[in-house]
């Protein structure tokens, strides 16, 4: 069961998956996904473990194919271009669509270098000190690290590391930031900081977040896509709507069971 294909041609959608299927070899992980991602909004992807949330997220910046060797059906439109067109350079895609991972993974370099590196490889010519400060301020980390920019990024706490990873993603100025359970390895206070940060960031960026934490999706996102394994044992989006509707008045019984904790 899939939802109807959304209207096309409206520029308010930065990203749009259409009839998307994702395969690992012969294994069909995700099938028939239609998912629009609206500009300057936070779109959450929720669903039980193993339903293909991360696989779907990683399809948005062609991360899957690097290590897993996935195959794609259908298309993902980014600003009107199909990301999976043979003429598209995946390196360029990942430059425009950044990513924050589940476990904080700062480079074993200084805090400063963690941020400067991405800008440098893309030929940033401006004032690097200003850029580093700007990214650290945007990720609400500046006050905590401004006196120790030369220290290793690995010396920070988990929550700080994750905000450093967000700052690092901002340094290449992507249009979209994909977040793969960015707070699942963090304590509640650090989690709250990340959520507040997301609200700040959506003024300038579009965010897609995968989360296991339903309160997080309810609190932090504007739209929510509910994923589940379908009858053919492949993950798919069973319902997509504004977040408050998903959580207060879902159309699909399975969504209701899941968000109210009565699943299974």
């Amino acid at each position, binding site marked *: 069961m899939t939802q109807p294909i959304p209207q096309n041609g409206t520029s308010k959608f930065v990203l749009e998956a259409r009839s998307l299927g994702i395969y690992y070899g012969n294994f069909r992980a995700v099938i028939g996904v239609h998912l629009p991602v609206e500009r300057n909004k936070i779109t959450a992807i929720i669903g039980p473990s193993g339903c293909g949330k991360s696989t779907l997220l990683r399809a948005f*910046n062609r*991360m899957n194919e*690097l*290590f897993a060797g996935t195959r794609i059906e259908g298309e993902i439109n980014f600003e009107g271009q199909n990301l999976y067109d043979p003429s598209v350079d995946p*390196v*360029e*895609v*990942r*430059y*425009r669509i*950044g*990513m924050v*991972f589940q*476990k904080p*993974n*700062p*480079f*074993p*370099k200084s805090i400063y270098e963690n941020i400067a*590196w*991405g800008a440098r*490889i*893309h030929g940033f010519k401006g004032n690097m000190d200003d850029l580093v400060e700007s990214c650290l301020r945007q990720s609400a980390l500046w006050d905590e690290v401004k006196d120790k920019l030369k220290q290793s990024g*690995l010396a920070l706490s988990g929550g700080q590391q994750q905000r450093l*990873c967000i700052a*690092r*993603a901002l*340094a*290449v100025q992507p249009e979209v930031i994909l977040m793969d359970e960015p707070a699942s390895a963090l304590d509640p206070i650090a989690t709250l900081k990340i959520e507040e940060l997301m609200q700040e960031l959506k003024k300038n960026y579009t965010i897609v977040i995968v989360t296991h934490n339903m309160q997080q999706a309810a609190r932090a996102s504007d739209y929510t896509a509910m994923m589940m394994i379908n009858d053919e044992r492949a993950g798919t989006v069973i319902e997509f709507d504004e977040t408050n509707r998903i959580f207060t008045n879902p159309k699909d019984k399975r969504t209701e069971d899941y968000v109210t904790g009565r699943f299974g």
Partner: protein
Amino acid sequence: MAESTIKWVETDKRPLNLRRKLRVGELVIQGLLFFSGFFSIFTTIGIVYELGKEALLFFQMPEFNLIGTIASVEWKPHVGKFGIWPLVTATMMTTVIAMAIAIPLGMGVAIYLSEYASPKVRSILKPVLEVLAGIPTIVYGYFALMFMTPLLRSVFGNEVVQIYNTASAGLVMGILILPLITSMTEDALSAVPRSLREAAYGMGATKLEAALQVVVPAALSGIAAAIIIGISRAIGETMIVAVAAGAGPNFTFNPFEGAETITGHIVRISGGDLAYDSVDYNSIFALGLLLFFITLTLNIISQRIVRRFWEVYE
């Protein structure tokens, strides 16, 4: 909730007894394992003792003096000339030449294997490298003498390149050490977590940028350890230099001249029929001790570096 269908299985349980039991099998295995560990320590102590004892005989000889060893460039123990430099410079030259081959090639192969090669290419290349590592060094020695030297002579001219020369031995030694550097470097690169590569790719880095600017720096201590182990292998390598580098101490920095390394000298002296307790005979133990300390120092340094390297990701 559906009615439980789990069947409860009763197991026979011993009566409660918390007293220590004697487990003979455990004790025997523990003893054997302890013995294996102790055996290697004992061997090392034995070697150091024997080397030290014989070297001491040399140091106590009236002919020996330390100043002469350091200040002179002539090594002729039988006439009381103990200038160590010709042997040391020859060792340094073969080592530098070998590393000039092994480091860049080894790093290149390792980076290729760990970051670029498809599983199929890797499954071919790695066994080939292991074959390279398995060739006896005497074969490498004759490869240097019969192939590398004529090659050098045809390129640079017979009047420039002597039949025995350190360049040929060093180059072939580089090939010998290549698999060692490659496999240690590749281990270091593979130990870099995938999440770091993902982070780099996620920012739009190319493969080369991710490999050279993120993965290699993250593996640097492991790579440094690989290089140091390679150097100590080159310093201690014997057969190739004994066959191809030249017989006879020669204080020179010309790689196309013959010269004798520390190891090559020990082989030649100990292979001849020398009287026990002669100066020449005793001197080779002092040389052995010198070699031992050089490689021991290098190995300790590399262990330190490797330990630091493991700490980073734990």
